């Protein structure tokens, strides 16, 4: 990262540095040889690519290592840390953002694959004092405990209601050709890509149901 606005060394950053140092000194010397990486030829210099993204309405021209995921671009380069890195493998949903209005896992896509795309993160949905209705409903219904999955849950639920509105069926829709119903079963199935380790699911469903009812 050659950004001007480097973060100060935080407690978490310090912990990572410490852990890395411990691994460098304390790890078994043979451990490296067990990974596929060590058996392969040395890595060449990373390829840099230019990409421009419109994030929460603001255009950003970036030059990135081609490997940079959209999630890392948002967090590490644009310092929009609302989107969270949970598993980094598309299994938890904490990184969910909207790209051109559709929810995706930002950890499973490269920033360079999104030239000119419009990205909406939790920061773009609402702000303290001017919350998006879904944010307000999560607060009202206690739709979280630790809050780590919440930005992903909220981005996913806003886009999910748009999918229902557009008539996209789900696994639990009884009739494929009818307009999908707004039931708790539908909401649960459609939100199955967002895991909440604290188990706030029933309150999340209540929050979404309230917003959906207001929109209908």
């Amino acid at each position, binding site marked *: 990262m050659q950004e001007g606005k480097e973060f100060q060394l935080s407690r978490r950053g310090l912990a990572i540095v410490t852990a890395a140092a411990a691994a460098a000194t304390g790890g078994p010397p043979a451990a490296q040889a067990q990974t596929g990486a060590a058996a*392969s030829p040395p890595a060449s210099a*990373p*390829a840099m690519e230019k990409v421009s993204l419109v994030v929460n309405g603001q255009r950003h021209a970036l030059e990135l290592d081609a490997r940079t995921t959209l999630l890392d671009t948002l967090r590490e380069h644009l310092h929009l840390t609302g989107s969270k890195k949970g598993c980094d493998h*598309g299994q938890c949903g904490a990184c969910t953002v909207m790209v051109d209005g559709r*929810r*995706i896992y930002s950890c499973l896509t490269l920033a360079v694959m999104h030239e000119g795309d419009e990205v909406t993160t939790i920061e773009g949905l609402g702000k303290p004092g001017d919350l998006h209705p879904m944010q307000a409903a999560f607060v009202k219904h206690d739709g979280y405990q630790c809050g780590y999955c919440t930005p992903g849950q909220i981005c*996913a639920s806003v886009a999910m209601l748009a999918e229902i509105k557009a008539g996209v069926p789900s696994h639990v829709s009884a009739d494929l050709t009818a307009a999908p119903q707004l039931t708790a079963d539908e909401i649960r199935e459609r939100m199955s890509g967002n895991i909440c380790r604290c188990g706030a699911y029933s309150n999340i469903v209540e929050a979404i149901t309230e917003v959906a009812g207001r929109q209908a």
Partner: protein
Amino acid sequence: MRPFTYERARSPAEAAAAAQRPGARFIAGGTNLLDLMKLQIETPAHLIDVNGLGLDRIEAAPEGGLRIGALVRNTDLAADERVRRDYGVLSRALLAGATGQLRNKATTAGNLLQRTRCPYFYDTNTACNKRQPGSGCSAIGGSTRGLAVIGASEACIATHPSDMAVAMRALDAVVETVRPDGTERAIPVAAFHRLPGDTPHIETALEAGEFITAVTLPPPAGGRQFYRKVRDRASYAFALVSVAAVVQRDGTGRVALGGVAHKPWRVEAAEGELPRGAGPAMAAILEGARPTHENAFKVKLAERALAAVLAEAKG
């Protein structure tokens, strides 16, 4: 992730030509490839981004079917009115797979090309003939509960993870491609995925650099269509067993299975048994199955899933 160079292709022919570069891979949705690249199971030296090729339309095919562009996203294919009306098994299969976020990104061609979720393929500390040809198969004699019960080999007992491909097998879909020399061909989905044999790392009939442009569905098969998926969770889990079925009023029909083999499993010759019920039909479909102690339940589960489908078809 290992470093790679990156380009955006401007035409299918250009993409196929670029793919002749050593270590080149196409990237579309990227939901499977990037996951594997992070784990260094896939280590492409060059990525060809095909998202700009515009192959994202579903059109009526001249023979009365549908031509699905390679880049049509799973969400859009499942939600297409014609698919919902005439190819319900396909819509159902797509909706039974992954999550809303993944279906918004994953493409038709990419779904066909997904790699197995065999835990030993994912664990780079174990031997895997698919990941590293010739290294052996840690799954054999290991934890096999989710793995293949039929069509496997001494080299590999992995399953194909796709739901969509199982429905396409039942529907007799055809995969259209263009090769690096510009020639085009059509591969029936039945011949698209391979059994592992002694080359489990070669998973499809695609040649080096060959690029999928579309998948064509024949005219609607009619009947009642079902996709019944049995898994460990109610949502967002791969199939232990799945049944894609098209059942006609007279009890005849077609059945393809997911979760049991290295490819969507269909035995046309066994489908004559369907009017006699799930027991005889599944016995014929899974004839020659060699399950392990841990996954023998899949044979019975497949029969029961088919029985449930046939009961629903009658009801």
